[in-house]
């Protein structure tokens, strides 16, 4: 995953984009991805993900900056010459053509001979297990089937880069998980580079080599899924990825390894400083719910403890989810595994919870 400059396949270089000349939808985007990487752009609605994808595909021009593909600036190359495969959110299968004609389209415009064409179409259809649907019209296919055809069509002309804009957005959960798996498998098997857009974080985490978290036109963090989850670099990422408990406070002491934070309720806790600088700064302390322990027997050495009151206990089968009041925060969630020796808490119960200072990250407020 080395992202050395010379082997960057796609490169956004200080790209900015404004539609109306008043607001920047994309602000100073710098992104490099090597060949074969599966990169996901994740972010809330309106954060500029589609815009980035469209600039890469050539349907929007950057207001400023450059986009390079394989080392060549593509700012002035029209979309049809970029050779980038694309899967659209609504699939955009041509309704007046059959599945086979849809797949033949990119081959025909490339003047590929009929026999080659047929072979490629069959191969692409087999790849997505839709070989027997060649003569159907898109309207005669289910959502999942249309999705596969859209994928096959984007891959049939063997592009090196494939863009997908929320391709699974319209599918139900089960089908979605199946397709996530199939898309990643295909991408890795074919060795193609994929830029994938979604606002579903589970999708992003399970599918990608790296995830770029977008907010407000900027990449908030670009990292592998585990890094993103374990080591969020700012409070937006911490909040956005996975479930997260936040406690507000002020920095009292700080050095490279450790920060002492005084919570608004008065307690002092030890945290790992991430993007806080100096004493007196406001901070958001982030703790993942599954890193919090209340069972004294399991509490690790060096764990930091706080008093808590149980507000709600939800049995979720494999997990227990408990809502607590901690340091004045009524929405403090902890998740514990349903193990034989695990105690079930009762609302109103007073308990003591604890976590390791490494799991407690002091982020910007």
């Amino acid at each position, binding site marked *: 995953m080395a992202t050395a400059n010379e082997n960057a396949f796609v490169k956004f270089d200080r790209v900015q984009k404004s539609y109306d000349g008043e607001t920047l939808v994309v602000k100073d985007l710098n992104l490099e991805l090597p060949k074969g990487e599966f990169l996901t752009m994740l972010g809330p609605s309106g954060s500029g993900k589609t815009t980035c994808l469209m600039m890469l595909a*050539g349907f929007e021009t950057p207001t400023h900056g450059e986009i390079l593909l394989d080392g060549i600036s593509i700012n002035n190359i029209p979309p*049809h010459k970029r050779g980038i495969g*694309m899967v*659209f959110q*609504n699939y955009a299968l*041509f309704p007046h053509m059959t599945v086979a004609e849809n797949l033949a389209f*990119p081959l025909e*415009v490339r003047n590929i001979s009929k026999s080659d064409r047929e072979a490629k179409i069959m191969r692409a259809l087999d790849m997505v297990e839709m070989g027997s649907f060649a003569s159907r019209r898109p309207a005669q296919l289910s959502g999942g089937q249309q999705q596969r055809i859209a994928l096959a069509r*984007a891959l049939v*002309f063997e592009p090196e880069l494939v863009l997908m804009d929320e391709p699974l957005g319209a599918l139900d959960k089960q089908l979605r998980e199946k397709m996530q798996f199939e898309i990643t498998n295909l991408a890795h098997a074919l060795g193609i580079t994929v830029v994938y857009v979604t606002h579903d974080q589970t999708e992003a985490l399970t599918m990608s080599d790296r995830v770029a978290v977008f907010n407000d036109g900027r990449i908030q963090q670009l990292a592998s899924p585990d890094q993103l989850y374990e080591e969020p670099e700012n409070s937006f990422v911490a909040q956005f990825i996975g479930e997260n408990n936040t406690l507000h406070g002020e920095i009292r002491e700080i050095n490279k390894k450790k920060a002492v934070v005084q919570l608004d309720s008065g307690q002092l806790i030890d945290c790992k400083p991430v993007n806080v600088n100096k004493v007196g700064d406001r901070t958001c302390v982030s703790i993942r719910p599954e890193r919090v322990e209340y069972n004294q027997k399991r509490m690790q050495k060096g764990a930091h403890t706080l008093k808590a009151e149980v507000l709600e206990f939800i049995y979720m089968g494999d997990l227990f989810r408990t809502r607590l009041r901690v340091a004045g925060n009524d929405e403090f969630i902890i998740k514990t595994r349903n193990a034989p020796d695990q105690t079930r808490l009762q609302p109103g119960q007073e308990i003591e919870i604890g976590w390791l200072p490494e799991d407690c990250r002091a982020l910007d407020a």
Partner: protein
Amino acid sequence: MTDQSSTQPILAADGVPLKKSLSRALRRQKMRALLLISPLLIFVMLTFILPIGNMLFRSVQNDIVSNIMPNTVIALQDWMPDGDTLPDETVFEAAFYDLFVAAKAKEHTKLGTRLNYEQTGISSTFRKSGRGISKPGKALAKDMAGIDKSWSKAATFDALFNARSGGTRSGGADTTLLRAQRDRLNQLKGKDYKGDIGFAPSLEMAMALPMASREYTYWALFMALEKDKDFKKGKVSEAIYVALADDLTNPALADRIAGLTGPDAELIQKTAAAFRDRPRISYTDLMLGVNENWGNPMVWETIKLHSPAYTGGYFLNAVDMRKTLEGPAIQPENKQILIILFQRTLKMSLIITVSCILLGYPVAWLLANLPVRVSNLLMILVLLPFWTSLLVRTSAWKVMLQQQGVINEVLVWLGIVADNNRLEIINNQFGTIVAMTHILLPFMILPMYSVMQTIPPSYMRAAKSLGATNWTAFWRVYFPQSVPGIGAGSILVFILAIGYYITPEIVGGTEGVFISNRIAYHISSSLNWGLAAALGAILLAVVLVLYWAYDKIVGIDNVKLG
């Protein structure tokens, strides 16, 4: 047992079969729905369905001949025209009285006009005959007044023929004759007169002087009911003298006349004696004396040919054919115009439709793809023509296109055309095409626009991302999806164009007029409503056939108006 239960109807909670209670519930809904649409339904019925039905009916309706000359039509049934023999005396007799009666009621010119559609010149025969038909009667009236002065008084006739006047005639009243003559009047005038006029023909007279009785009865009814005058005063119609002379010279009636008794018998017998050595009245000679055209077998042929109450003749005329004795035949060269007009209408409508597609497509595309603010402005421009009067727009084209008009002036000023060689771009097909394309353009743009609006831009993007150039993406992906809009617009424009009237009338000259202008001409100028109706019916049929063909080829489900 189980079998029976399965065939038993399912019952609703109150024991009524479910089907029944469902249909009752549905009926109420339907009634309410019907009530809601009834104003529109009534309106459409009155203003659309009925007139169209009436028009279709008029195109085959032809009872005018048998209404105005009923007896002639009956008499002609036995006549077999062969090109040069005239019909026999009975036909001339019937025709004489029919024509006389019609002329008095001022109906003969209508028939003349009707038959003139089939044989030019026949209307003047009718018109002239109408004027001359009372001459023979006048001469006879003079002769009779010479025999006895009382013949010139209407009162004399009343006393003679009216069974109810003084009771001088024995044998009672001939109610059958009375009813028949009343029907004759009603049929001629298209009325429904009823009621007693204080006259009933004497049965005895009806036997002795049948023709005179008949004509007098008709006359009395005509005066009392149609003219609202006292038939006992003044003079009687000339036809009665002719009828009387006929009776008096009829040898078959001599005995009956001689056998008459009573106070008036003497008058009749005296006159009969005076007429005894005269030859029997010849209606053939009478009619030929009125107008020599009655000696032309063609005239009778025309009457016979067009006497049925329903005719396909108008439809034949509408396609430049006519009815002949040998069946349908092509119209003479100089009367062939309608087929040409139909062809021209179709051809020009097609050209107009195609021009509308070519001009409208880019505009519709812009409308659908520009940012909302700009496209709204453009939409206003497209709709602008709807807000100005059609007549104003057409007249504006006249100003633009005429020889001294804006376009020619500009071209001359630019030196592109010579001053003495100005372009003829109006009062011909070109002018019609230009003006109508302009007027019908919105009808093409709007359906195309609403279809294009539903095509997501992602299709074009998808096509381009797959490697298609702008043109290929448009032609292979966008265009096929916009075809339903083109179809809808084309149907609309074509059907509107095919029946357009006002614009071709103003800018079309003679070269650029449509079939609808011909229909208008027949409705308002030549008054040949039957032909107009037949042309209209054919136009309607053409539209329906085209619609059907379109449905077969493109499928009407594919037509989207939005």
